[in-house]
Structure formats: structure tokens, C-alpha cells
């Protein structure tokens, strides 16, 4: 991923106790959570679909995806709408409220083990003003295996 190597603006969101970053160019919008329609027989981490200004958008729960325990929604729960490969997908996060510049030199390769999250999903870690940001590799988070899993359900 080349954009990691540049001064990147990332959207910071919270999941459990950790802060994650996704490049701002992948983010379409940040929405409050509302009216998600469950899709039968979809994988567990797919919460359902939502009407996003007239477009039916699938919503996945990042906690489920990363194997973290699920929690009740709170006031700060948000859905970040991300665009990857022409697909629009919403991810549920605990909170999203920050945009941070990540200078190239602050990015370090991902450590061997970071929490419960499979290291494949991680592009790197940036330490900025005492905050540790985990930069996600979106393609891997929504990886094709998952799409395949989705499409073979019957």
C-alpha cells in the first residue's frame, strides 16, 4: 500500500480500547446507527443492510469481524461508510471522532501480535503524541475470502 508511505490523513475510530486508522480517501461518510435490516443466512459479522440516502448498503460489525466481544450500542456508536473496489460497505465502530495526519516516518511495521486482531489486517502502527494508531488494511479487512463466503451461502 503506497499511501502508507506518504503523509496520510486517517480517520481514527475506537474499537474496545484501541484506536484504529483508515485512510480518509476510503471514507465516504460517518453515520449514526439506525434501522439496520438483518439479512438472513448472511455471515455472523454482517449485521444487515441499511438505507444510506437511497443506496442499500451492507453493514458489518468490526467487533464481530475481529473476534472481539460484542457490546450494546451507545450514543457514540458510529457507522463508517468506506469505499473499497467500487463497493460501499458500512462498518460499525465504537466511536469515530478524529482525523489525524500520519507522517510517513511515524509508521512502523506491525508487531507480531496486536490484541486479538490478525496481523494480516494491519498495515502498520503509528505512534503520534502518545497515541498508538493501528492502521488497517481495508482490502484485507473486507477480504475476498469473506466475499466468497458470502456468495456461497445457500
Amino acid at each position, binding site marked *: 500500500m503506497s499511501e502508507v508511505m506518504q503523509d496520510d490523513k486517517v480517520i481514527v475510530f475506537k474499537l474496545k480500547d484501541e484506536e484504529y486508522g483508515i485512510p480518509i480517501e476510503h471514507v465516504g461518510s460517518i453515520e449514526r446507527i*439506525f*434501522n439496520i*435490516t*438483518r*439479512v*438472513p*443466512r*448472511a455471515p455472523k459479522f*454482517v449485521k*444487515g*443492510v*441499511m*438505507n444510506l*440516502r*437511497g*443506496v*442499500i*448498503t*451492507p453493514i458489518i460489525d468490526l467487533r464481530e469481524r475481529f473476534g472481539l466481544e460484542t457490546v450494546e450500542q451507545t450514543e457514540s456508536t458510529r457507522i463508517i461508510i468506506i469505499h473499497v473496489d*467500487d*463497493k*460501499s*460497505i458500512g462498518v460499525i465502530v465504537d466511536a469515530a471522532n478524529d482525523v489525524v495526519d500520519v507522517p510517513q516516518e511515524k509508521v512502523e511495521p506491525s508487531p507480531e501480535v496486536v490484541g486479538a486482531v490478525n496481523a494480516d489486517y494491519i498495515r502498520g502502527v503509528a505512534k503520534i503524541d502518545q497515541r498508538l494508531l493501528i492502521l488497517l488494511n481495508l482490502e484485507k479487512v*473486507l477480504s475476498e475470502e469473506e*466475499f466468497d463466503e*458470502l*456468495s*456461497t*451461502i*445457500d
Partner: protein
Amino acid sequence: MESNQYLDVFIDESKENLQVVNDGLLELEKDPSNLSIVDEIFRAAHTLKGMSATMGYEDLSDLTHKMENVLDAIRNEKITVNSNVMDVLLDSLEYLEKMTADIAEGGTGSMNVESVVTQLNAIEKGEELSQTGTSPAVIDDESETSTSSVEGLTVDQFERTVLEQAKTDGQNVYHITVSLSEDCLLKVARVYMVFEVLEQSGEVIKSVPTVDALENEEFENHFDLILVTSEQDEELKAKIMKVSEVREVIIKPFELEAEQSSDDKQTTEENQAVSNEQPEISNDQTNDQPTDQQKKAAGNKTIRVNIERLDALMNLFEEMVIDRGRLEQISEELNHNDLKGTVERISRISGDLQNIILTMRMVPIEQVFNRFPRMVRQLTRELGKDINMEIEGAETELDRTVIDEIGDPLVHLIRNAVDHGVEMPEERKQKGKPAQGNMLLKAFHSGNHVFVEIRDDGQGINKEKVLNKAIENGVVSSDQASSLTDKQINELILASGFSTAQEISDISGRGVGLDVVKSTIESLGGSIEIESEYGKGTTFSIQLPLTLSIISVMLVMIEEETYAIPLSSIIETAVIKHTDVMKAHNKEVIDFRGHIVPLVDLRQVFEVPSAKDEEETYYSVVVVRKGDQMAGLVVDSFIGQQEIVLKSLGDYLSNVFAISGATILGNGEVALIVDSNALIK
């Protein structure tokens, strides 16, 4: 030349003018003495000539000029219109269409049109067509788009040189005609295999139809080619016959000299063949154009808009409809008079807006109908029949998505009517009918649907024959047969595994038959009915939804979740006592109007989280069908019928079981659309 900006206009107008010429010529053929038609054709041709000359497309303007001369002579009654003249004129038209298409694709529109020009000249001079024997052999241009036919394989100069070279080298040159069996399903694959075989043995110099056309399956069941090889014909034949589904292979030596002389004799035949071979291709090119009738009706100025933009507009509008709903609700609560008035106005305006947006996506069915007169003309010539085709209601509008799908089923039905419906002229005379058969293709609006009727005054459906055949083919049992109404018997011909044509012909009935038509139409959310009186004629009546993007559904609740079931697949809703549910093979079934209908519990299928376990005393059942099979979908409650906008679940969730899409309800929530076809095995 700085004419790029005019190119689009030029192409559009050329197509319009060509369509006028096309319509006019067909008209003229029916009514050769009506010289006012010639005037109209002449004007269109003249405009075309002027425009193409201005744009610098000389071949186009030359050919139009020649046509114009002939038309002028007809107008001045120097030439009488006969079928030869018509053939040549239609032939020229086809060239013009090809040239225009070439220009539209960025080409130069140049094409060698010597043969047709010679013929036009000959007509103009009042010579008989057979005297064109002195004309040089037809020479194809590089793109191989000009004359080529099954009867006479013509070669251009380059190919001629190659062939002559091959002959002097002692190679064999063969003209091979390969016929595939009638029920061959993978024609393209067979063609490919044949070509592979041949390419191992030698070199294929030319094929008719062209390789491209063959790959697109634009041929009937046979194709011709010229092969240069060192092998003997018997050997070759054996090799080709090894490819399965090849019915017949005819190999004869290809003689250049003979070809040249036979070429001329076959000119007229060729013309027919050419126009027979390529009607659909050339007509497709004219498909996207508004026609002159429409132009006259509206005198309209049009702009082209990308359909994606219209979709985007539609999306935004739907969003607004949802907000409108909220606004209405809020104003109701606040009970403020001014606010109420304003909201009412907004509601009214957005209602009008909705209509306009929907109609913007509509196109006249003319686009599909346009190609049929010429198709029927060619079919009747092939079959030696005489059929007059009339079209009504071509201006009827349908959503683009439906238009794109409806063409093939109509082609099938029309071919069927021409082939099996209308009798031969002699037979008609014996029956006391006029020798000329009549066909009517009619489209009209009614409610939320568009109806398309295909009516012929042919022999009608022989119910006895149909019944016997249906029983014979196991479509119905003889017990069932006795209880069928006339209508049901007629509709048997749409059942799969049914085909009454005793002999398979090229035109229709290659075994697949009308069941394909039926399933296509049903997949569009439409239906098809047949009325027929034996000896008097048959009417196929197709009912189609106005649009595919907006459908009528029944909204149902399962626990807290709302699902939509397309009305087109619903037969009935019913509330059934739990005690009326029976068990068969461990499955729950109900007796629905004499049919045993299996129950499908949607709560289980969709794994709806359920709060309560207790059995209910009544089941709410939606009876749906797929073809002749039925199923009862058990839901919790019915909400009601609603028009909804069909949306896909997106790429990410493309293949969810038994869900065909989603829609946004008035309150902004998403409801999933049940694919009842997936629930019926």
C-alpha cells in the same frame, strides 16, 4: 475536417433518414402505385446525400445518389416497381446502414458497393436485372461486410489471388458447407471445433457468415467456407463429421472461373440471401433512434442523457420521497396551518416529479417493432407465403429495461405465427380466405401494464392435435386432459417439452419452442395468454409491467421483520386454521382449492429470531407459484400491497438465498424482497 462536433448529429439524422427510407420502401412494396411514398423516400435519400457529401463521406453520398436516380425514375414513372427493383433498393439500404454504422464506430464509411451500384445503374437505364451479367465480379472490401451469401461464395481480389496461387501450387480448394443438427445447442462451440479441425488440415480462406458473425451465433444451422488444403475431400469430410452434432458436410471443389460466371446469374438470388442473412444486425443499428412518426408527433427536440444519470436522479428522488413522508408526519403533529399547506404542495409537486422521472426512462416500443416488418417480409419470401403485417401502437412506451428484454420473445412468436400460423396461399384460397394472410402486432397501455398482441388470421390451434401431442409427450395425463378448458388446452403449447410442428423447420420450432418465450416473459414479471379459433386465427397476448424498477409487492411481517413478496408470483393469500394443515411425507401441506400445496415457514427459512414458541391457531399463508408449482409461504401477518422501487443488495451481498433484492420503505427502513422462485423446488 472540423466536423467532429457535427458527427453525432449527422449519425442521428442519417439513421432517422434511413429509417424513413426503410419504412417507405416497405410501404411502397405493398402499394407500388402510390408515388407519394416515393416522394417521401426521395426526400429522405436526398437529405442523406446532401449531409454525407457535406461531411465528406463520398461512398455514402455516391450510393445515395444512385438510389436517388432510381427513385427519381420511379417517381417520373419511367420505371415500374417490381420485386427485383425492391430487392436492389433494400439491398442498397442495407449498405447505407452498414456505412452509417461504420461511421458511427469511428470508421470512414467507405465500402465497395460496385455490385449494387451496377444494379442500380441497370435499373435506372431500364435494363432487366439479368443483363447485369457484364458487370465485374463482386469485390468485397477488407472488412468483408459487403455481399456474401450462402448460394454463391464470392471472393475479393486478394482472396482470389491467394486461391489462384494455391491452385498453381497444386493445393485443393474446396467449398465446404457444414450443416449442424437442428437441435444443436452450442452452435458456437461446434463451429469452433469444425474450424479447429479444418485449420489442422489447411487454411480457411473465407467463411460465410463471417467468423465474427459465427462467433455471435448469427447464423441458422449451416455455414459455408472455402478451404485450401492438400488433403482429399473424403478425408476432410470424415474429419468434420467426427465433430458431434454436425448433420451434414458437403464438399465440392471451388472453381474460380465457374464462380465468376455463376456470380452474375446469382445476383438476384444473392440480394435476397443477403437481406435474409443480415436483417437483425442491420436493424439493431437503427434501434436507438427516434423514428419519424415520433418526430412528427412531437416535433421534438431531444438531448441524450446517460441512463446512469437518470438512475442517480431516481435515487435522489426516492430519498426525497422518504423525507416527504417524514415531513407530512411532522406537519400533522404540529398542526400548523401554513406548514400543512406547504407540505401538501410539496407532496403534490413531488408526485408530478415522480411521474416525469419515471416517464423519462420510458422509450417507445417502436424500437423493438421496427425490425419486424422486414423480418416478416423475408420470412414470407423464404416460405413462399404472402403475409401483410400491420403494426399498431408502436408509440406505446415501456421502461428501457423491459424493452431490452422483450425483443427475443417477440421474434420467436412472430416467426412462429409466420411459420405455423398463416397457411400457404393456395391452402388459404381453398378455405375461402383471401390468399394474403394478415398479421397484426399491437401494443397498448392498460392500467399499470402494457399489452402486446400478435394476431394472425391463420389456421389457429388444432385443440385435438395439441391435446394428443401433450398426452403423448407427457405434458398432461389423459385424465387431466378431459377436464381442461379450451384456454388451458391452448396454453399447453407454451408448456415445456411441447412442440406440435410435425416437421422441424428453420424458421421456428427447433425443439425448444414457446416455453422459452413463456419463461422469459414471466421472468419479466409479465404473463402470456393465447386465444385461438380453429381455422380462423390465433392471438398471443402478452402482458408486461411498465417498468422493472418499480414493482408491486405484498408486504408481510415475520416477527419484527418486514419482507416484500412480488405480487406477480402471488396467487392468493389465505388464513388457514392450524388444524387444516396436513402432513405428507413429514412435510406440512394444505389443501388449496383442490391442490396439495406444501407450506414453507419463512421464519425458519430466514432464521428469524423468535421470541415466542407457542403454536398459533391460525396460519397466514401467501400462496405463490413458479410455473405450475405452488407453495404456501407462512408469515405472521399481512401488511398490504405497495409499489416499491427494486434495488439490489449490492456486490457485497450478491447471492443471499431466497432474497432477490431490497427496497426502501416509506419510513426509511430497508425491506428484503423474497425470491419465491428459490423457495419452490
